[in-house]
């Protein structure tokens, strides 16, 4: 190592705290905007590719963004109104598109429980890694990450979360049986629990199973009233929280299934033309009032252009912060030079050239910047490595 470089290194090493503060200042000033840029890029990539794979969705009127995010990322805005199940039937009957129901309102161990049909797996190209697809009420198929994080395998059980800890009536946690686990596919599907849409209605309290009251007498605690045609059960009747081969026969729905809720419907049109015709109907047909057809690619593009506009202000701000940091660093260097004036003068008196003294300062700066760049590169790489997962987790919620 040359003299000035060696001396510069020793100075930086000896004054570790000062050097680390300088390095940290440089790293943080650059890392923050770079991280935001990486996350935004990943966000754009992920959300755009998912949206592009979901050309149209139908749901209640309101925010088309909420609707798109529900169908693609299973996110639910509490204010989002449901649509009826028969809307899916309507879409099918138009002959313009296929309809895949989505009822994503519940969670199990904080993972979204997505009520849908087996068509969803085909539509997204999802494959079963172990076990089988859901076949009966109460079965569930786990996304790859869910199975890994919870350590659950086919044959084991998973209970749905109670949406409100104080809601003891109606909505009941359901102990679901894991039928299969999906292969990883790097999408929000990895972090979801898929069930038949009817299973979500059971969770919602629209369907249930309980002990057989056929033989119960009117004076038993489970019966409020019994006639030849009707048995009215009391609160004392035992409701099943798990669907098994033995009790599946007792599960039934109250009301008309066509009226049951869906949060959204994925529309799979054969052609863009059919999709446009269908969209036209949702815009003009009075019978479709209260419902809308949204195009996630367009919705997400609008969202991203807004995000990028906001980001421009942020980047301008980062530039100013960078400038302020550069000025502060200059101040630190200048003050340091003043403090070290005697040291420099001694070197000069002993026989060091002014140029070498300048080189000594330059090397110190180079070492600080090189250390900062190396650290920054490592951190940027780390951010880059986990950015996809971070964005996925943020989007899936």
């Amino acid at each position, binding site marked *: 190592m040359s*003299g*000035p470089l*060696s*001396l510069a290194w*020793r*100075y930086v*090493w*000896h*004054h570790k705290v000062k050097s680390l503060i300088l390095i940290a200042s440089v790293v943080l000033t650059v890392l923050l905007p770079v991280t935001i840029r990486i996350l935004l890029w990943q966000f754009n990539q992920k959300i755009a590719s998912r949206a592009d794979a979901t050309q149209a969705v139908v749901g209640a009127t309101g925010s088309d963004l909420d609707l798109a995010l529900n169908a693609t990322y299973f996110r639910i805005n509490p204010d989002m109104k449901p649509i009826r199940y028969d809307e899916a039937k309507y879409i099918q009957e138009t002959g313009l598109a296929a309809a895949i129901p989505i009822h994503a309102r519940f969670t199990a161990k904080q993972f979204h429980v997505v009520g849908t049909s087996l068509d969803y797996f085909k539509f997204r190209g999802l494959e079963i890694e172990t076990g089988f697809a859901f076949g009966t009420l109460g079965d569930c198929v786990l996304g790859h990450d869910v199975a890994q994080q919870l350590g659950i395998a086919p044959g084991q059980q998973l209970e749905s979360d109670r949406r409100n800890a104080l809601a003891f009536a109606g909505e009941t946690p359901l102990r679901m049986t894991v039928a299969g686990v999906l292969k990883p596919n790097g999408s929000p599907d990895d972090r979801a629990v898929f069930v038949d849409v009817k299973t979500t209605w059971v969770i919602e309290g629209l369907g249930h199973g309980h002990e057989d009251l056929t033989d119960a007498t009117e004076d038993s605690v489970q019966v409020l009233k019994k006639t030849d045609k009707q048995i009215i059960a009391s609160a004392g009747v035992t409701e099943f929280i798990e669907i098994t081969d033995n009790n599946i026969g007792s599960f039934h729905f109250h009301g008309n299934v066509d009226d049951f809720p869906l949060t959204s419907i994925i529309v799979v049109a054969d052609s863009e033309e059919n999709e446009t015709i269908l969209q036209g109907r949702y815009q003009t047909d009075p019978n479709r009032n209260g419902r809308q057809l949204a195009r996630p690619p367009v919705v997400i593009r609008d969202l991203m252009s807004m995000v990028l506009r906001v980001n421009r202000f942020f980047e301008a701000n980062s530039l100013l912060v960078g400038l302020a940091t550069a000025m502060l660093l200059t101040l630190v260097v200048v003050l340091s030079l003043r403090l070290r004036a*005697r*040291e420099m003068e*001694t*070197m*000069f*008196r*002993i*026989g*060091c*050239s002014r140029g*070498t003294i300048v080189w000594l300062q330059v090397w110190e700066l180079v070492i600080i910047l090189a250390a900062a760049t190396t650290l920054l590169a490592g951190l940027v790489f780390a951010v880059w490595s986990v950015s996809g997962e971070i964005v996925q987790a943020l989007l899936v919620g």
Partner: protein
Amino acid sequence: MISIRDLQFRYPRTDFSLQIPELTVAEGEKVAFVGPSGCGKTTLLNLVAGITTADSSSVVTAGQNVSNMSSSQRRDFRILNIGLVFQQFELVDYLDLKSNILLPFAINRSLQQSKDMEARAIGLAKEMGLGDKLKRFPQQLSQGEKQRCAICRALITEPRLILADEPTGNLDPKNKRTIMELLFEQAERFGQTLVMVTHDMSILGGMDRTIDFEQFRSETPATTEATS
């Protein structure tokens, strides 16, 4: 070793002036510069070392006229021929004792650091009683140890001339005595010329000659200004 003729020097925009018609210091001689503060003792050391120059004069050090040298020549000449010892020690705080001794090799390419020089640095440190403190930093050394380290740094290049500017100014009597003994011993052993600026009359006994600078002080401004 030192030959000065017709030196007229003054710092710009000051009343200070130094006029030396003739002054010589022989090879191997130990000479003390004494006189009140501000009379030009340190200035003369700077002129002899080529740190400062006076245009129209003759300052010949170690057989070379430093006044005629370029600044880079003077630097190289200084580091090869002159060992400097300062009152405030002027050690580099982020270098350990050994690296401080070897500092001249790190700051000027005229000197090539070798294993021999490292061994010499360790040897000098041992002779100065610092053998067990080679890894210590200046702030971990006593005043006396700092000055001994500074003397090692001045001697490491095996200079022909040692210029010491009040080397005992910041030391207690015991350390003062030790430092002077070490300086004399080294100078005598290697036949080095020692020129020392001092206010301490108690150390003049070991010197061959004492020059009182009061005689060189002039009330009228000299014509030659300083350059560096």
